[in-house]
């Protein structure tokens, strides 16, 4: 960037949303191509590679996250309507859901409780601060829901967003191997587990395995968004009470 003209262009671009938005789409496009090239290997998850590329570029060019997010927010914003859109697969699977409503309800309530309870409990046992425990609690819910809950229970919403993404990636990468080891063969069970534990990123992975697993994962993600919003604040009160009891005695 010795040419002053180029420098001016860079100054202009880095201050406009255009660059952040384009970078996001280009990085995801490259990452997705790589993912297909590796025949959908879960280790090449497109979220990991595109986030890695983007952080690399931002750090190397000395661009701040706020400048990047000027553009990134347009993609981020779509998480809201995407959450509403989950009503459609939910509706399409309604007849299957009606058959399986009891197992789905039981697994969902257990899954959501285990997801939040185990993350608070483990973080507490390992010496994590209350803020970290609260930021981790809703980590298995989809981002807009998790951020809302995190704010309500005293976590850091933006840190929660990051933890949600890492959780989704972890689930998407490990899921299929775990099911193989456990000999879980039902696509409905695999889908429900993926959606409850790893929300949208897990659902994207589940659709790669089979349409039925994807649909059930989407269903579980939608239902657990609802269950997490209802159950987690209540569970947090209970856990904090238990933790305060055990530390005062």
């Amino acid at each position: 960037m010795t040419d002053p003209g180029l420098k001016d262009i860079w100054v202009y671009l880095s201050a406009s949303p255009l660059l952040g938005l384009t970078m996001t789409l280009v990085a995801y496009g490259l990452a997705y191509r790589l993912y297909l090239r590796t025949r959908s290997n879960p280790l090449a998850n497109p979220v990991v590679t595109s986030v890695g590329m983007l952080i690399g570029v931002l750090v190397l060019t000395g661009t701040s996250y706020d400048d990047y997010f000027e553009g990134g927010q347009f993609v981020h914003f779509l998480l809201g309507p995407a959450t509403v859109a989950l009503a459609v697969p939910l509706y399409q699977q309604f007849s299957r859901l009606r058959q399986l409503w009891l197992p789905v309800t039981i697994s969902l309530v257990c899954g959501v409780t285990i997801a939040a309870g185990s993350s608070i409990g483990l973080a507490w046992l390992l010496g994590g601060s209350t803020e970290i425990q609260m930021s981790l609690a809703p980590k298995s819910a989809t981002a807009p829901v998790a951020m809302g809950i995190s704010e309500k229970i005293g976590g850091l919403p933006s840190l929660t967003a990051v933890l949600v993404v890492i959780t989704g990636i972890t689930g998407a990468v490990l899921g299929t191997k775990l099911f193989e080891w456990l000999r879980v063969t039902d696509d409905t069970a695999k889908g429900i587990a993926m959606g409850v534990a790893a929300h949208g990123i897990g659902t994207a992975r589940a659709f790669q395995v089979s349409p039925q697993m994807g649909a059930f994962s989407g269903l579980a993600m939608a239902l657990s968004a609802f269950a997490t919003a209802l159950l987690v604040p209540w569970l947090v009160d209970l856990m904090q009470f238990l933790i305060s009891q055990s530390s005062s005695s």
Partner: protein
Amino acid sequence: MNFLNGITLLLVYQLVGEVTVRLLDVPIPGPVLGMVMLFVTLLIRGQAPESVDQASSALLSHLSLLFVPAGVGMMVHFDRIAEEWVPITLALLLSTIVTMVATALIMQLTTRWLVGSHQGKEPDGD
């Protein structure tokens, strides 16, 4: 035009959800309430209009893309994560594995007990 109608409807439901949550002080996020309202509407109507169907599959087919800007936010929290990386990584990793394993097993067992084995795939299938 169809796609535009669909996305508009999704945004209207989100907006109604957000407003309701704020007015009634309900402890659930606006988009989730919007999703429930849309689901109820679809049940009452008995079908998903093509526009909503199109917009929803367009949004959901690249769901992972929507998480990318939030993921990049990791760079803001590098210090915080570095400070408490042991509880964060271990709690996150173990909790996700435990949740996934437990949910899959509970779902598989309860389906077999409560609904009957004919619902699932044959255990000796691929």
